[in-house]
């Protein structure tokens, strides 16, 4: 298949514009509600508790939580019985539709929240300075912490985006439940493995830590090698988390969109 048939930046531009136009009211109302809530907390905390780094606490909370919620609602139209057909039959490829969704929920949302939060902090500082003579400070987006939050957001967004494409309703809740379920399963597997590997040291449900137990944990490769494995595992996990997870889940999202049917 000719690639030009699947990827056109003009069509992506049109899709982006249409998405923004179609959702701007919800966006403005939500942003207003969040800013209002944050302003109340900001003013109240200045009035009562004095100076502390409000933005350091509330920027990541706002950024991550609202971002997850917004991302989880990305595919509402696609899953809807009445809107799904028009979304899926829009003359654009799955790849273009997927890129649009990813762009909006990563770059688009991040730019919007940083600018929005910066403006909010300015207004909040103005108000609290005027009334209480104290401020929490203005949000500085150019810090290492903010960059780190962006990274964490992009990784978690990819998982949430996939769950939004997978589950028809309450995707965020279902994702949290699924992750909890997975954690429980992993815990059970780990517990059973320990029980089987160290069966000698168990008496019923009781576990007896003896000297023999520590001897049984003999590292044939030596301590230095173990540290090496640990480091490799740590680096591998980091690479997996930062660089493999987002494209992997975005790819799964793309596949899910491709396989989506309207019943």
């Amino acid at each position, binding site marked *: *298949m000719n690639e030009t*048939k*699947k990827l*056109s930046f*003009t*069509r992506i531009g*049109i899709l982006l*514009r*249409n998405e923004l*136009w*179609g959702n701007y009211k919800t966006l403005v109302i939500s942003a207003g509600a969040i800013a209002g809530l944050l302003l109340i907390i900001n003013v109240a905390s200045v009035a009562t508790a004095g100076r502390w780094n409000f933005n350091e606490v509330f920027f990541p909370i706002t950024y991550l939580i609202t971002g997850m919620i917004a991302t989880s609602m990305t595919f509402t139209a696609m899953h*809807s*019985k*009445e*809107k*799904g*057909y*028009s979304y*899926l*039959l*829009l*003359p*654009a*490829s*799955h790849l*273009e539709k997927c890129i649009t969704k990813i762009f909006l929920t990563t770059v688009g949302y991040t730019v919007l929240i940083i600018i929005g939060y910066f403006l909010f902090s300015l207004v909040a500082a103005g108000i609290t300075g005027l009334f209480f003579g104290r401020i929490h400070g203005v949000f500085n987006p150019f810090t290492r912490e903010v960059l780190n939050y962006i990274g964490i957001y992009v990784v978690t967004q990819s998982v949430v985006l996939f769950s939004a494409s997978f589950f028809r309703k309450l995707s965020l809740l279902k994702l949290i439940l699924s992750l909890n379920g997975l954690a429980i399963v992993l815990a059970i597997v780990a517990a059973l493995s320990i029980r089987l590997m160290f069966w000698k040291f168990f008496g019923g449900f009781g576990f007896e830590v003896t000297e023999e137990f520590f001897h049984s944990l003999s590292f044939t490769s030596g301590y230095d090698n173990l540290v090496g494995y640990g480091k490799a595992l740590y680096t591998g996990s980091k690479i997996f988390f930062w660089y493999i997870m987002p494209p992997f889940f975005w790819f799964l999202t793309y596949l899910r969109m491709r*396989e989506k*049917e*309207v*019943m």
Partner: protein
Amino acid sequence: MIQIENCSFAYRKKNNLFSSLNLELEGGSIYGLLGKNGAGKTTLLKLIAGLLFPKEGNITVFGNESRLRLPDMLSEICFIPEEFNIPSVTTELYRALYAPLYPRFSEEDFTRYLKELELDPEENLSSMSYGQKKKFQIAFGLATNCSLFILDEPTNGLDIPSKSQFRKLLASTLTDDRLFLISTHQVRDMQNLIDPIVILDEGEVIFKQDAFQVARKLTVKIQDLEPDPAAVLYVEKVLGGYAAVQENTDGSEVQVDVELLFNAVINNRDKVQGIFTKEEVKK
């Protein structure tokens, strides 16, 4: 234009709605897709549009597999389902947002169709009635100049003048490279529009004939006395006697009422099929 080969589909694993369905539809016609409730008409429309995927077999539209939903194919399809949702924007804004995705969209045609269907271009779509929204979708769809129009119960919700406008518009916009596929129960609304007629029953296409062939092979006679049901294909009590659908043996060409034809095919499928295949066998 549309090719369905050995298509099977099931909503549930064990209950096949279609098993080995074959159908070929060509441009330049307004196909009427008829069938009883649950026969699979809407499902077939969705399969053609690529909204559902066949479990087995192939469905190609303009030579592309429909399930791939390629942009080139989608820009040539207008699908208007029975239940739909359109954004709360003015008709003008809707055009500005979505028309660029259709390379052959004609603003001139769009304005003309809106006028013909008596729609206000400044009106917000959310304030329109269901029928008006449907008319808007028809106007927009026609203005895209797409080649395949798939309409599910298009006259539902349309008032009497709108039904007539709709028929006129469809007839006037039919070209050799355009295909209208209309699924409907309101056969009287479509009586003079749909040709050929495709009847779907129990997951099979049991009838696919054009009006000319139907008029040549079948006839309807109004009789005072009830005919022997075994001697006719279908009989129904009507005002002034009995309408009997039977084989046309005297060569006169009488237009057969679509509802009577449908009932004849459903009730006497083998006999009707036999009449239509008779000549083909002779050839």
